[in-house]
């Protein structure tokens, strides 16, 4: 049984030992070490041992600190955010698409309106990917159609229909006069009108979007800054299998 209150474990239960490394913008010397020890104390590491320091150039010092934290962890108060969908590996995603669709999932991506910034959509779709993760093109069971920049909404709807898209991803970087919000709403409305309930999953992404806006914009999901291809792919798999069950 794990007890409710715990401390970090070094080599003895309850010793609270942690290690930390940091760089301070102070020339190497006793002052730099003292500065690191002071910070450690403020962080609750007391007593703190500066076990190593060395100069990085004339103005910085790298310091390694070991020490015991006085804080307690109350496990009852640990609130873990449950992701509504599991983060899957590329292999798991491929397997899951194969199982649920028994064909490749078709993903159509575009920058809509006058926005020429394909950075976002390319980071998600190009095999080069983003943050060390490959883009959706890398997934064997996804067929990706990247329409690129400045795609008009009617063209996007037409193409999504002819490609039999399961999901449509649009990215919007430019936010002048709320262009990203207006364009996304226009896109959602166009799909609703043209295809009704049979419309593909709609996903909008961009650095200035708030994920809570999905309902208001009429899309299934909104991704904000720092989203990785794996998160998007995992969501698509989750949403598709959910849709299958409902339908």
């Amino acid at each position: 049984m794990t007890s409710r209150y715990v401390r970090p474990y070094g080599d003895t239960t309850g010793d609270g030992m942690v290690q930390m490394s940091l760089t301070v913008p102070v020339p190497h010397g006793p002052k730099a070490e003292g500065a690191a020890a002071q910070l450690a104390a403020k962080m609750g590491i007391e007593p703190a041992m500066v076990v190593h320091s060395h100069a990085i150039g004339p103005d910085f010092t790298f310091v390694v600190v070991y020490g015991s934290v006085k804080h307690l962890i109350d496990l009852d108060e640990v609130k873990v955010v449950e992701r509504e969908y599991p983060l899957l590996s590329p292999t798991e995603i491929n397997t899951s698409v194969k199982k649920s669709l028994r064909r490749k999932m078709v993903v159509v991506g575009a920058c809509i309106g006058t926005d020429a910034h394909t950075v976002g959509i390319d980071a998600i779709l190009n095999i080069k990917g983003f943050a060390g993760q490959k883009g959706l093109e890398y997934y064997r069971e996804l067929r990706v159609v990247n329409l690129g920049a400045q795609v008009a909404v009617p063209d996007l709807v037409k193409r999504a229909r002819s490609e039999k898209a399961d999901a449509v991803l649009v990215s919007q970087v430019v936010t002048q006069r709320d262009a990203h919000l207006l364009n996304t709403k226009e896109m959602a409305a166009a799909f609703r009108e043209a295809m009704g309930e049979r419309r593909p999953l709609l996903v909008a992404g961009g650095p200035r979007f708030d994920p809570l806006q999905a309902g208001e914009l009429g899309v299934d999901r909104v991704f904000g800054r720092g989203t990785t291809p794996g998160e998007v792919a995992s969501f698509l798999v989750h949403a598709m299998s959910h849709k299958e069950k409902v339908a």
Partner: protein
Amino acid sequence: MTRALLGLDQGTVARARELAAAAAAPVIELAKAHTTVAVERATLRLAGITGADSTHRAGDVPWVNRVVDTVRDHCGLEQGSLLPVFHALREHDLGTLTELAEATAAGQVRFALPEGKDRDRAAKAARSAVGKGMRQVDRSRAQRAKLVEKIGDPQQRPWIYLIVATGDIDEDVVQACNAARAGADIIAVIRSTGQSLLDYVPEGATHRGFAGTYATQENFRIMRAALDEVSKEVGRYIRLTNYASGLCMPEIAVLGGLERLDMMLNDCMYGILFRDINPIRTFVDQRFSRQVHARAGIIINTGEDNYLTTDDAVDAAHTVTVSQLLNERFAHEAGLPDELLGLGHAFEINPDLPDSFRMELAHALLAREVFPDAPLKWMPPTKHMTGDVFRGHLLDGFFNLAGVLTGQSILLVGMMTEAVVTPFLSDRDLAVANVRYVLNAAGNLAEDFRPAPDGFIVKRAHLVLDEAVGLLERIGRDGLLKAIAEGTFGLMKRPPEGGKGADGVVVKAEEYYNPAIEMLETGATK
């Protein structure tokens, strides 16, 4: 470095080269038969067009884009852009190419193909202007040689290669100078995400990028000047690297030549496979850019490491060898000698596999012995860096050891925080300390390293070479474009008619005129 630890059959190596040359031949013909908007823009940059139209509603549009697009509208690019441009300059009695560009933007210029005496006059003026640019490239090369002579090269091999990427050129300068003081011999400034897909080169000093800094002529100049200063301070010539890839490959090559960059990432297939750029566009642009690099004395770095991050590093090891042979062939054809061929490869085998390090040694030695005179670029683990920074630091140590043991020439320093954060100041410092420890402790271990003639390493290297020959035979039968279309490299399928930038490719007419290409091929300066 000439060593023969693997006992490779020289007949097999020669056969691999012949097959690569045969596979490349039709693609080279294709490259010669076309021009692209980017080649034309690069030539106009050599001829002296600089700057951008800042009044355009879409933001700054470089003058070269304005001019080439307008020439294309009026009279096509089949004969190149130079004749119509220099004819118009005379017809409209304009003093400079900038004035011509401004008049073009204002809609005052009607471009047409000159004939007879007019054609001769335009050709002569174009040649004289392009010659000036070419001589500037030659001067940059001579100045590099002079500085290397005066300040000196790094004392050790491999040269230590470090990356900076803040998005702000001024901040990059601070980081680059500190990296040089910490031991870097080569600084690479990573480009802003997605610059490879821009069909124009941004202008001026830039201070905001996405996970990197825009490659611009002014940014090149600023960084080179800063590195010249720090070179004197640290007593070795610090080389500067950027990326001649993507839709503006030829223009970046020209700007790098003018501003004395020392190395350029430049791969024959990377843009096709990983950026979905049209294959024909890539091969045409690549040939021109490599001719410029040859002229400028710029070492190219090829991108074979990327295949291993997408495909399995064991199963796909031979695709690296095949790509290296193709890169070598395309580079030789464009006039690059072996000493400017920084062929790439990487330490990307899953560390949980038994004998992973022995396989890494086999692959690294294979590259070393197949390309004995090329400055090979050895790339650190990225795919199996998990965020466990302690394990990552150990892996980087083994990567460094493999590098010195197999005589690699350029070592890209691995960071333990790969895939976690952009490197902290301390990450870079610890990474360089890792390299220094290995160099100091084992830098000469290669002298004692003799893999057993029938041992695991030798057998593995022979197997990979045989697989490479097998794949080259298949490519020879089907053609390289088909192999690319079928996903042979890095698992990506790219048909020759698809991809970005396809509309910028133009079939050359018999009367095509481009003095830059001739000067690059003959070495002429006028």
